[in-house]
């Protein structure tokens, strides 16, 4: 019998959607392996009802470890404690950087292997096979494991699926390692810059590094206002990290996931970390002077040219068209 342990990422009383997706996927796979899916919460004050709620996504057991949230080392210690007292073949993380950090460390600690950026799992021959896109998603490799298999998923790899009902929470004692005592989270999840709403927009004009400056975001603003209605401006991580746009408007791995009717990228290269947050858009248009940019691999319409000339002219043309 092979059980799957899932790390349940949470913040401010809510379980992360990617963790719920991972629990759902684990429940399905564990069923095929003849085992169960269990979930682990790590935090100082995880409420009973929050932790127990993941039973509704297929977890048959829920463990809670009292330790600081948002840091990899305590998560590794807590995972280690649960794995030591049960029969587990796999550990699964939903999307997020803690999965890469804690996943790699728990694999090392327990002599297992890790697959990262996993987009799907399936059961074959009584074991889990993890699907891992490589080379800019042009190929998908299958990964199997010897010993403990740790699977750190890509953002939005798994959809939450309701099955089962809330379960009781079991508290576990964790002895924190020396490494855990040497990290302290001062602030978690700080929002910087203005609060912009990009999740409800039907049209998203997204500025990337190619825009060149904070001032040049006016080009994106003008184009969005030409569309009118529910158009908004968003940004890539590179643009946000450069201080050109507020964090609330960031799409991607550590930002928002959006699925507008139209995504229009200005100077966006289309790195995987960005793509995972916008690939569900109905229509993807990219304007970028670098014809080799990865975004042209998955854009529905790619325009190779100078956005600083094209975007303002496009804004004027759209306004004229709308009359």
């Amino acid at each position, binding site marked *: 019998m092979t059980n799957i342990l899932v790390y349940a990422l949470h913040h401010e009383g809510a379980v992360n959607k990617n963790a719920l997706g991972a629990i759902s996927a684990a429940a399905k796979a564990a069923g095929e392996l003849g085992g169960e899916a269990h979930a682990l919460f790590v935090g100082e004050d995880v409420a009973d009802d929050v932790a127990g709620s993941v039973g509704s996504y297929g977890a048959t057991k829920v463990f809670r470890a009292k330790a600081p949230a948002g840091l990899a080392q305590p998560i590794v210690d807590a995972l280690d404690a649960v794995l030591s007292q049960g029969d587990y073949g796999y550990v699964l993380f939903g999307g997020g950087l803690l999965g890469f950090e804690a*996943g*790699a460390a728990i694999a*090392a600690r327990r002599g297992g292997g890790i697959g990262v950026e996993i987009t799907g799992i399936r059961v074959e021959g009584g074991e889990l096979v993890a699907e891992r896109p490589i*080379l800019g998603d042009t*190929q998908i490799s299958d*990964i199997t494991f010897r010993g403990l298999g740790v699977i750190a998923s890509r953002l939005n790899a798994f959809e939450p699926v309701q099955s089962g009902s809330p379960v009781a929470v079991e508290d576990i004692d964790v002895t924190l390692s020396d490494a855990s005592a*040497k*990290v302290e989270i001062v602030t978690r999840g700080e929002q910087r810059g203005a609060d912009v709403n990009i999740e409800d927009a039907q049209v998203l004009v997204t500025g990337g590094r190619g825009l060149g400056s904070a001032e040049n975001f006016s080009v994106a603003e003008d184009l969005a206002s030409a569309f009118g209605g529910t158009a908004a401006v968003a940004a890539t*991580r590179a643009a946000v990290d450069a201080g050109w746009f507020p964090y609330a408007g960031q799409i991607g791995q550590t930002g928002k996931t959006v699925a507008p009717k139209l995504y229009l990228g200005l100077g966006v290269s289309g790195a995987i970390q960005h793509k995972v947050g916008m690939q569900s858009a109905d229509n993807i248009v990219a304007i970028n002077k670098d014809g080799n940019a990865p975004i042209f691999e998955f854009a529905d319409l790619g325009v*190779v040219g100078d956005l600083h000339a094209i975007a303002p002219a496009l804004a004027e043309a759209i306004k004229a068209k709308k009359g």
Partner: protein
Amino acid sequence: MTKIVVLVKEVPDAAVQKQVDTSTGLLDRSGEKTLNPFDTHAIEAALQLKESGALPVDEVVAVTVGPDSAVKALQKAVSLGADRSVHLTDPGLAASDVVATGYALAEIVKRENPDLVLAGQQSDDGQSYAVGAVVAEHLGWPALTQVIKLEADGTTLTCERQAEYGYDTVKVQLPAVISVGDAINEPRYPSLKAIMGAKKKPLESLSLADAGIDASKVGEEGRKAVWQAAKEPPAKAPGEIIEDEDTAQTVEKIVTWLDDRKLI
């Protein structure tokens, strides 16, 4: 005094089409190589800690694991400002997974006994984000990845990064392993003098046996994540591409395309 080890990696040049051997699922690592671009930010971070006096750094050591050709990555690291380099190279390391590679690197780090290990947040080819965490686990040190701001005060590092819910600020006690994101700095360009002088700086080449590394924990035998055959994902119809030659015409084409899909 403080010693910093920077973990670097040789990767296929991004300008070169990368290939996978579909029968083994392993990356074809022939062809032009370069220093992983993400690692240049780690070297720059080490130099800034040294130059600003934030840490009393007396030595920056570049460490890599990889085939003979990886010497070039070390030379680039040294030309960017590392003082010397260590190259772990052995046929027994071929086909190591990230956990095995991290174990081997940790053994080299132990030999060096630094106060801080810096790495790029990901490699251009494997993109595992994970090697720093593995190295730290073997050393019993804390680790943090994707750090975009780093301040040192005595033996405490204050690190900022973007995480799942926004910006996190984390205090880490040295010794530690920190992987940096590309937003942390703008790496300097090496001077011609530095490039010419790079070959004169000490380079130590070690085999598994030299470094006392357990060969059964690396390579084919030691890997626990086994890459199988690669396959093509379901094909998506290729998009339309417009090469902009005349802006007015280009704009007209875009407007027509949008209008056909009722997006205006």
